[in-house]
């Protein structure tokens, strides 16, 4: 290094800046590239990066400097008219945008897409009954870029949510010319893996959920997902398919045709894979409620049985008591009955006695009639029972006298 003072860096950068700005080649440059990291700030200025595969530059649209077309967004290819500048504070090369316009390069392709959508709509493909996801997959298939960040994200997230979940990755090209064919073939593989026969061969559950997608990119990058072969394959999958293409722009055909749309591959994992811990907790909770619900009823039953038991133990004596009391009552009744019967009988007896007494032979004798008895003491009531010469006793009211039978005269009838 030869003589001369070193220049302060600020000065150095400023002079660089001046030199750049003064060169008219650096003014009104027409540049073509893709928009990345587009960000509008509260200040009103918009910053972004303009890039392609070979280089990039930071760009800024000062507030109000130019109209920003609505199609301008992340990944959009644009043409920019601007001036080169240097942001001295960071030593950063900058393009100050004067005008910006999107390149409608995909015009013809866009027409194709709209035609395809119309065809699918007419065929009823878009209105077909979409399949619903199972509560959890037993075998998840992932069709995406091999070794892509999207794949890494999906694998990591699914492992976090459900460790040990069975997954098969089919790595395909997701952009460029070969993409549409490979994605379609990937879907065909997944279809085959979802068949019961194949599952039986491998002894594994068949694939029951498919996620097909990729991370964000420009419309051109994603274009394979707008093409018919992919749409057809998606619409004929026998199991639920999630279209998981990272983009925020127009409807992608695969989004429209697939059973479920996810905004990103990670989102697709959130939709398809529940958190195992939550599922296990749910099972534990249900088991609890099952037991508690039953135990309460068994407890009630147990109580009832205990009460019955108690009643049974008391019951026989209770019955006896009743019987005894019943008997007592009967006894009283009986007594009463007997007493009154005796009473009645006594009265009858007295009456009979009276009658009897009145009919007593003594009375008859007192009236002058005689009772005659033979030697045997038997009462003689008929003369035919008498024999002449027999001795009989004559009973008078006040005594007896014996007599001999003399003359028997039977009365003529």
């Amino acid at each position, binding site marked *: 290094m030869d003589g001369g003072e070193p220049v302060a860096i600020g000065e150095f950068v400023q002079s660089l800046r001046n030199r750049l700005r003064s060169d008219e080649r650096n003014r009104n440059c027409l540049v073509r590239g893709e928009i990345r990291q587009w960000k509008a700030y509260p200040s009103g200025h918009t910053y972004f990066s303009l890039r392609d595969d070979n280089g990039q530059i930071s760009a800024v649209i000062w507030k109000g400097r130019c109209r920003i077309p609505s199609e301008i967004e992340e990944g959009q290819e644009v043409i920019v008219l601007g001036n080169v500048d240097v942001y001295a504070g960071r030593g950063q090369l900058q393009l100050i945008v004067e005008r910006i316009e999107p390149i409608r390069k995909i015009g013809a392709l866009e027409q194709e897409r709209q035609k395809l959508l119309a065809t699918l709509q007419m065929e009823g493909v878009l209105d077909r009954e979409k399949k619903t996801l*199972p*509560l*959890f*997959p*037993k*075998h998840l298939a992932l069709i995406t870029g*091999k070794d892509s960040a999207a794949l890494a994200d999906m*694998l990591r997230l699914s492992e976090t949510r*459900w460790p*040990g*979940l*069975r*997954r*098969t*990755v*089919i*790595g*395909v090209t997701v952009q460029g010319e070969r993409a549409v064919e*490979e994605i379609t*073939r*990937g879907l065909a*593989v997944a279809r*085959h*893996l979802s068949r019961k026969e*194949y599952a039986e*061969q*491998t002894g*594994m*559950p068949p694939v029951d959920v498919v996620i097909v997608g990729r991370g964000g990119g420009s419309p051109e990058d994603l274009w394979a997902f707008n093409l018919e072969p992919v749409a057809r394959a998606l619409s004929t999958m026998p199991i639920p398919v999630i279209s998981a293409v990272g983009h925020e722009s127009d409807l992608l055909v695969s989004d429209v045709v697939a059973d479920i749309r996810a905004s990103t591959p990670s989102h697709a994992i959130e939709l398809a894979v529940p958190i*195992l811990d939550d*599922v*296990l907790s749910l*099972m534990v909770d*249900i*088991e609890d*409620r*099952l037991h*508690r*619900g*039953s135990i*309460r*009823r*068994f407890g009630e*039953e147990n109580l009832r049985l205990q009460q019955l038991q108690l009643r049974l133990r008391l019951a026989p004596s209770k019955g006896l008591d009743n019987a005894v009391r019943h008997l007592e009552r009967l006894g009283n009744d009986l007594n009463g009955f007997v007493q009154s019967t005796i009473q009645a009988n006594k009265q009858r007896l007295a009456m009979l006695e009276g009658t009897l007494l009145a009919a007593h032979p003594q009375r008859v004798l007192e009236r002058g009639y005689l009772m005659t008895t033979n030697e045997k003491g038997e009462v003689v009531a008929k003369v035919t029972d008498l024999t002449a010469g027999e001795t009989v006793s004559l009973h008078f009211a006040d005594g007896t006298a014996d007599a001999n039978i003399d003359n028997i005269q039977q009365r003529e009838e």
Partner: protein
Amino acid sequence: MTEQTYSDALRRLESIVAELERGGMDLEATLKRFEEGSALLERCQGELKEAEGRLEKLRLEDAEAMVEEAKKE
């Protein structure tokens, strides 16, 4: 019952548990529900176990070859 999916089983479990919690059933009905519920729980737990498996990372060509092999059998 073999084709019953996990979510069907879960739904049936929820309804059984709700019935039991409502109460008012006779003993036999309670026992039946309890048994059915226990069997369903076991089934669900079995289903969950089935989701466990390997991570298989295949390139498209290898996956297709695998499928072709299987078709031949």
